[in-house]
C-alpha cells in the first residue's frame, strides 16, 4: 500500500492532434525518454490522500526529493 502513486515522466507533452501527421510526435510522447541519472521531473498522485497531482523533482540516483509543486502550476 502506497500513499503516493508514481504516474510517470512529467517532461513529455501529449500531442494535441490525432492526425496521421502527428504520428512522430505521438511516438516521441509514448516511447522516447531521457531517463536521466540525476534530477527527474515526474508526476505523483496523492492517491490515498487528497488526490492532488504533483510534479516532483527527484534524484534518480539517491531518491532525494528536490522540489514538489502542484501539477497545474508546474505545467
Amino acid at each position, binding site marked *: *500500500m502506497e500513499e503516493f502513486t508514481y504516474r510517470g515522466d512529467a517532461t513529455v507533452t501529449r500531442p494535441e492532434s490525432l492526425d496521421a501527421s502527428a504520428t*512522430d510526435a505521438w*511516438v516521441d510522447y509514448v*516511447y522516447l*525518454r531521457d*531517463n536521466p541519472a540525476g534530477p527527474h521531473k*515526474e508526476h505523483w498522485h496523492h492517491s490515498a490522500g487528497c488526490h492532488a497531482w504533483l510534479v516532483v523533482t527527484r534524484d*534518480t540516483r539517491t531518491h532525494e526529493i528536490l522540489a514538489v509543486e502542484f501539477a497545474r502550476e508546474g505545467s
Partner: protein
Amino acid sequence: MSVAGSSSRVAEMAGLRLPIEAHVLQAFVTEGIKPLLDTVITFGAGHFYCSQSDKGGLVFGGDIDGYNTYAQRGNLPVVEDVAEGGMALMPVIGRLRLLRSWGGLLDMSMDGSPIIDVTPVEGLYLTPAGAMAASRRRPPPAGASPISSPRANPTLTPPPTVSIVSRKGASSTKRAWARNRTCTEGTPCGSNALIAVSALWKSSPIAAMPP
C-alpha cells in the same frame, strides 16, 4: 551495446535516445530447505515467481518498484506486495526465514516488449533491452542472445523488430516502429507453473508440517 540498466546513458554517448526507462527489481532468498521446487512457478494475477537454488534457498520476486531509478535498492511497499503474492500462491513460504534481498536495475521499454535491433549508428547494435519483469516476457540475457552481428555474419537477416530508437537531430521520417510480441503464441505464461504447483504440495515436506 549490452549494458542492461545503463543503456540510456551509454546510448546518449552515441547521440541516441531510447524508448527505455531504468527501474529497480528486487529479489529475495530464504534459508535453505530440502528439495521442494524443481521448476520455476509463477502466477500472473499476483505477479509472483519462485524457484529453488542448488543450495536449497527459495529465490523469489514479483513486480518492479515502479518508478525510474538508478539507486539499485528497493522500497518496502513492494516487499509487502511480493510477500503477499508468495503467501497467496504457496502459503508454506510463510514458515521460512528470509536471508537477504537486493535490488538491481532493469531496462524497461514503454510497452514491455524486448528490443533487439540495429541502430542508426553504423556498427552499433542493441542487444536485449526492455525486459518485462523477470520470468514474464524477459528476453534472454545478452550472452544467450540468438542474434549475432549482421556485419559479422552477412547471411543473417537483421531482426524483424523495427527501431523506434531516435537519433537526436535525425529526420523523424526515418523513424519507424513495430511491436515485438513474445507472449502471444503457445502456452499462456504461468499455466504450466500452476499445473506444477497444484501437484506439488501433496508430496511437500513443509506442507506436511502443522500450521
